[in-house]
């Protein structure tokens, strides 16, 4: 267990002035500062290429930041591999393209990390897996392979796989963007339940209805910076910034 950094005890994620440059001089995000409270649901919205995915991927170290600090549950996400791995165990992530392991059954997809990372026995891992599959409503698919599932079912398995690690925070990067319209609802329902149960969530989404209903706070990003943030209803009803108004008028 690494030494925890004293931060505001209520802040599970604390981001200070982070910048990420990609090769070729692209500044994907610039000096972003933000906190996430425990049990808070933050929805990140913004136009394509504004750096939403990059920001999310920095939070669990999938991208290395070029400046600033990130502290997750008291652990600094610095160059230290042990810190990074410890944070990754506590932070679950769901991707736009599901990213299940195609050569494993649903059960093995969900059991793998439980056994290898958490050191659980087969029985323990199976029990958790079945409980989670029931919760996301696809118990009967335990022994199916990912390619035998619909997109919505695959994404629910991906959510179950992340939840099986018992994470303190869940990150969602456009979890419904690759889905056919009739499947978006079933995935959003799972995410909504999760939020109601008090999971801390950072959600990048284009589903404004979902954001308004579920989010405690909306963060609007553009060109790598946070342009505006606020409580959900307030944000949608009375945006302050011109760029926010322009964006909202285009998509609502």
């Amino acid at each position, binding site marked *: 267990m690494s030494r925890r950094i004293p931060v505001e005890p209520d802040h599970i994620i604390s981001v200070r002035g982070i910048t990420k440059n990609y090769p070729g001089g692209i500044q994907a995000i610039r000096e972003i500062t933000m906190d996430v409270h425990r049990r808070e649901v933050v929805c990140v919205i913004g136009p394509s290429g504004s750096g939403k995915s990059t920001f999310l991927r920095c939070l669990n170290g*999938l991208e290395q930041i070029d400046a600033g600090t990130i502290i997750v549950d008291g652990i600094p996400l610095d160059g230290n591999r042990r810190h990074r791995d410890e944070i*990754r*165990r506590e932070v679950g992530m769901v991707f736009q393209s599901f*990213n299940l*392991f195609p*050569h494993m059954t649903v059960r093995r997809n969900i059991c*793998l990390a439980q056994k*290898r990372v958490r050191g659980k026995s087969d029985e323990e891992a199976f029990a958790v897996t079945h409980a989670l599959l029931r919760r996301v409503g696809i118990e009967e698919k335990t022994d199916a392979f990912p390619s035998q599932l619909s997109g919505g079912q695959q994404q629910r398995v991906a959510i179950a796989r992340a939840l099986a690690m018992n994470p303190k925070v869940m990150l969602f990067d456009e979890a419904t963007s690759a889905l056919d319209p009739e499947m978006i609802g079933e995935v959003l329902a799972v995410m909504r339940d999760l939020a109601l149960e008090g999971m801390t969530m950072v959600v990048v989404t284009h589903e404004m209805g979902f954001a308004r209903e579920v989010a405690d706070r909306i963060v609007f990003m553009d060109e790598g910076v946070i342009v505006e943030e606020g409580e959900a209803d307030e944000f949608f009803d009375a945006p302050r910034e011109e760029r926010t108004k322009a964006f909202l008028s285009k998509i609502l």
Partner: protein
Amino acid sequence: MSRRHARDAGVAADALLDIGSLRRYTECNSAMPMAKRPHIRKFLSAVRARRRGLIEIGEFLLFAAIAAVVVAIGTNNLQYNWQWFRVPRYLFTTGPDGLRAGVLLQGLVVTIQISGLGLVLAAFFGLVTALFRLSRSFTANAVAQIYLEAVRNTPLLIQLFLIYFVVAPIVGLSPFWSAVLALSLFEGAYASEIMRGAIVSIPRHQWESCHSLGLTSTDTYRFVVLPQAIRRILPPLTGQAVSLVKDSALVSTIAIYDLTMAGSATVSNTFLTFEIWFTVAAIYLLLNGVLSLLSHLLERRFEVVT
């Protein structure tokens, strides 16, 4: 998807003469209009492939007959005295304790041992080199690169001699293990390129989901990347294994009694030049045939359900 369809089509084409199953096949797939059914098109092309296969067998037989005639005329002109009846005793001998392997089959056993061990070691060298080249360590990269360049740009025969005459005396390696080492280092270099290619072809997001779950790099390779890569590695690696078996004939130059050496010795004892060399070639052909079959079975085993 397409793989399963292709297999279905193959099965159906096998059943071509069985009208009942053909009807069943078309009936259970008749939901869509004919022209829009990709599996029907696949099926037809599979039928055509089988037909082409028959034609090719015919062509092959014709060719073999012509070759046989040419050889017969040629050897007739040479006044070669065929004595096939003398060959079996070099395959099997009957002694007081029953049937025993003759010199050629004893040589084959050595060839199989050397190739088998060589294959395992080549896979090991290949994998290690591939991982070295994919690692971020400068030293590992340099070592792998030097090994690859050295092996690929010198003749195998010279590598074999270097190991047998220079390395083996220093470290006390037997001729047998010198041969295994030389062959596996050689084939390992080519295998590593195949493996690296397959590993790189696994999409980046597979790595990312492993990382986001907190899996270590070792576990990511072991459970996620390599099992997927092996499916893509097996077919080209079979070609490499066949090369290894063929290249193992070179070990006869360092006094190892493999199949080639056994053939050569038998020829000089008996002057059955044509018969023995034809037999030796046929044995190599058979061995590699078995190898391809095994790899085919393995491929099925690692097939990803699609």
